[in-house]
């Protein structure tokens, strides 16, 4: 993590294709917002300010997936200007929900939605996470990222350190919150496969985790597959459920799994 001792960190917040939830989450830190703007030199943040500068940066937070050629250029430019590039939110880290299609499916669907019209301002490309195009220094997943995670990142970054990360699954926080496990009740919860950080929002409310933070490091997909199958779920349906939020990154697993179970 870069830092200059006397000057405030120069931070830029950029949005590619997505729901803008991660940028909005920064604005949702209402009680901390004034401190944030005082502690850091926010150079660019389209959603919040109009006097934006495109200069050298210490940190660039990039949210959204890469979905047009113009965004590829923009992203490369950000990489050139920033010491540290952070993939901010699930769309940037994993491609988001829009990245779950295969290339062919995507082409087909694009045609169905937009017909043959050629866009004048830029060409669409299959949505991908930003590390498909540039080197990424840090990943903050989540759909959207959480306030705690963002503030933890920010306060540590301001002092020149990366955040502490615990690559745990959702179950960890779910247990802290003393939820009765949904898997035991036969509800298809993806908690064991999903990166922690949301606060176990869904199981807190008796709703099974949908996996919106993307796959957890070290997750045991095979075991969960068979467990859900044993609970009466259809293999294809489980796969689809798992793929919803994992973007392009679950594909590798499916390939491996296919080989293993043959």
């Amino acid at each position, binding site marked *: *993590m870069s*830092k200059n001792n006397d000057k405030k960190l120069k931070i830029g917040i950029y949005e590619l294709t997505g729901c803008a939830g991660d940028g909005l989450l920064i604005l949702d830190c209402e009680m901390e917002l004034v401190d944030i703007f005082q502690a850091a030199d926010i150079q660019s943040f389209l959603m919040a300010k109009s006097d934006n500068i495109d200069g050298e940066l210490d940190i660039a937070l990039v949210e959204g997936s890469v979905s047009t050629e113009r965004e590829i250029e923009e992203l490369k430019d950000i990489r050139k200007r920033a010491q540290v590039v952070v993939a901010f939110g699930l769309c940037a880290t994993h491609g988001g929900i829009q990245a779950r299609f295969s290339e062919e499916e995507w082409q087909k669907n694009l045609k169905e939605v937009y017909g043959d019209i050629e866009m004048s301002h830029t060409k669409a490309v299959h949505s991908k996470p930003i590390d498909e195009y540039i080197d990424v220094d840090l990943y903050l997943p989540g759909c959207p990222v959480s306030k705690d995670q963002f503030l933890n990142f920010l*306060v*540590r970054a301001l*002092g*020149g*350190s*990366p955040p*502490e990360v615990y690559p745990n699954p959702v179950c960890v926080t779910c247990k802290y919150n003393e939820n009765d496990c949904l898997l035991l009740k036969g509800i298809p919860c993806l908690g064991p496969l999903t990166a922690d950080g949301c606060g176990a929002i869904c199981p807190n409310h008796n709703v099974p985790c949908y996996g919106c933070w993307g796959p957890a490091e070290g997750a045991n997909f095979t075991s969960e597959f068979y467990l859900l199958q044993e609970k009466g779920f259809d293999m294809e349906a489980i796969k689809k459920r798992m793929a919803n939020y994992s973007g392009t990154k679950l594909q590798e697993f499916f390939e491996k799994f296919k080989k293993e179970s043959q």
Partner: protein
Amino acid sequence: MNTENKITAQSNPFLPEPARIVRTYPLTDDVHFFQVRIADMEKALSFRYEIGQFAMISVLGAGEAPFSISSTPSRPGLLEFCIRRAGAVTSKLFQLKENDFVGIRGPYGNGFPVEKMQGKDILIVMGGLGAAPLRSVLLYCLDNRDLFGRIILLHGAKRPAEMLFRDELLDIKKRDDLEGYLTVDGDDTGQWTENVGVVTTLFPKLENINPENTVGVVCGPPVMYKFVLQEFLKLDIPKDQILMTLERRMKCGVGKCGHCAIDYIYTCLEGPVFSYWDVTHMRELI
């Protein structure tokens, strides 16, 4: 654990002592030397430790991590560390300058069994960052020269530029009460006058080793252990006279956070120094 230093609940054992960096300079590109003094003079002098013990160093905003004490207890007051840039704590530490503050707590760990080593020949084999704890052993033995028999040092590095304490050791090597051998895997400078080859290529140079009276001490990267241990065994050094220090994840240093547990041994309490005998009886160790 040294009972004299046992800290009671009144003085929260997790609370570091403010300390200042007295001196810091690079030993190599990614290993820096740090000399640190506890700010409170009285506490600085009463910080007594043994060779092979470690301390927790904390850096504001980055965290805390364990580091072997590289200085010798025979020279109290200042603590020396030799630290490789690895992650959050160490990177931040590298940005600090002389006079900046860090936090220190310790010393922790069992340290080397000095009593058992006394009167024996000491064969020290270190590689890479293994020099951090073993420099303390070496300096201590030299400072208390008459307590020990022969002192033999084998030290290896990848390249001359990566040899920790190179100049200090080249100097020490000139002493006639020490048999010192330095080696590099490869010499890219053309100026290296010492041995070239991995550290085990130094063993044939050793003469008249009396295994029963020798304590072998080794610390280095994981691959090194395997080969050096074989050499020790070839020399017939008894397993309980072969000593090594191990690394594990640690968050507390005092046997509470659980991370350093190997089977049911806490590395921070019963280690980090283990004999080869211990190691062969601990299933998870190597």
